[in-house]
C-alpha cells in the first residue's frame, strides 16, 4: 500500500507558501444529541463541519505577514509533489506567530480557521 512522504508536501494560501516545514489539518463535525427516553444507546445527529489548519515555514525575507492577516483565500494542502492529490478549502488567516532566535532559522506559524460553506474538497487521483 503506497504512502506519501512529507518532504513532497506543500501548503498554499492563494499562492504557494514558501519554505514550508510542516502543516496540520484538523477536521470536525458537530454532533447534536438526539437521545430520547427508551433508547438503549445514545443517538447523535450530524451538524456542521469545520476545520482548522496550522502551517509552519522557515522565516523568509520580504514576506509581508501583516498584509495577509485577516484575509480569506483557498488553502490547498498538497499531499505529494506536483499537486495531483490534495485537500482544499477556503479559510481565514487568523493568526501569525513569527519567532527569530539567535541560534536557529526563524519560523513563522500560520493559523487558519475554516470559512467554507461547502466544506473541504478532496482531489485524489
Amino acid at each position, binding site marked *: 500500500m503506497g504512502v506519501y512522504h512529507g518532504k513532497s508536501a506543500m501548503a498554499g494560501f492563494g499562492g504557494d507558501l*514558501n519554505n514550508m516545514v510542516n502543516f496540520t489539518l484538523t477536521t470536525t463535525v458537530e454532533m447534536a444529541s438526539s437521545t430520547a427516553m427508551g433508547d438503549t444507546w445514545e443517538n447523535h445527529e450530524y451538524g456542521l463541519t469545520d476545520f482548522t489548519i496550522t502551517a509552519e515555514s522557515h*522565516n523568509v*525575507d520580504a514576506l509581508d505577514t501583516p498584509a495577509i492577516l485577516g484575509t480569506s483565500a483557498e488553502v490547498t494542502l498538497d499531499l505529494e509533489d506536483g499537486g495531483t492529490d490534495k485537500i482544499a478549502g477556503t479559510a481565514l488567516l*487568523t493568526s501569525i*506567530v513569527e519567532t527569530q532566535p539567535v541560534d536557529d532559522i526563524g519560523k513563522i506559524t500560520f493559523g487558519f480557521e475554516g470559512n467554507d*460553506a461547502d466544506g473541504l474538497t478532496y482531489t485524489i487521483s
Partner: protein
Amino acid sequence: MANEPIHGKGGKAKFDTTEFANEIRWTINLHNTAADSTAMHASNTGRTRVAGINGGTADVECYYLADASPEVLPGATAATLELWRAASDAGAGYYTGPAKCTGYDLGATIDGVETITYHFIFTDEVEIAII
C-alpha cells in the same frame, strides 16, 4: 533575495530609542478574532466566518544586562517597537508598530545565564518595513 530563509543570529529588537542588549529571541503574535457567520441553509456543509479586527503582541527575550535596571519598564510611555529579521539585510524587512510594555519576566537558574523577557502589546497597525 526574496524567500530565502533567515538565520536569527542577525536579528534585533528596538523600543523607542532603546536597542535591546543581549537579545536571544523575539516573537510576534498577530491575530484576527473571526466572527461566526454561519446561518441555517439546507445546502450548508461547513461553517463560515468574517474577519474581525487585527491585534498583536510581542515578546523580546534577552540575557539580563548586568549592572543595569531592566531596559524597558512596564507602563513605559508608548513608543514604536521594531523587530528586525536581519539587521544587516536591507531586504529582509522588520516589523514596526506602536506598542506599550505590559510587563517582563525575569528568570535565574542555577545552571544558566539570567534572562529577562519583555512583553508588549501593539496599540495600532503593525507593518513590515523593507528598507
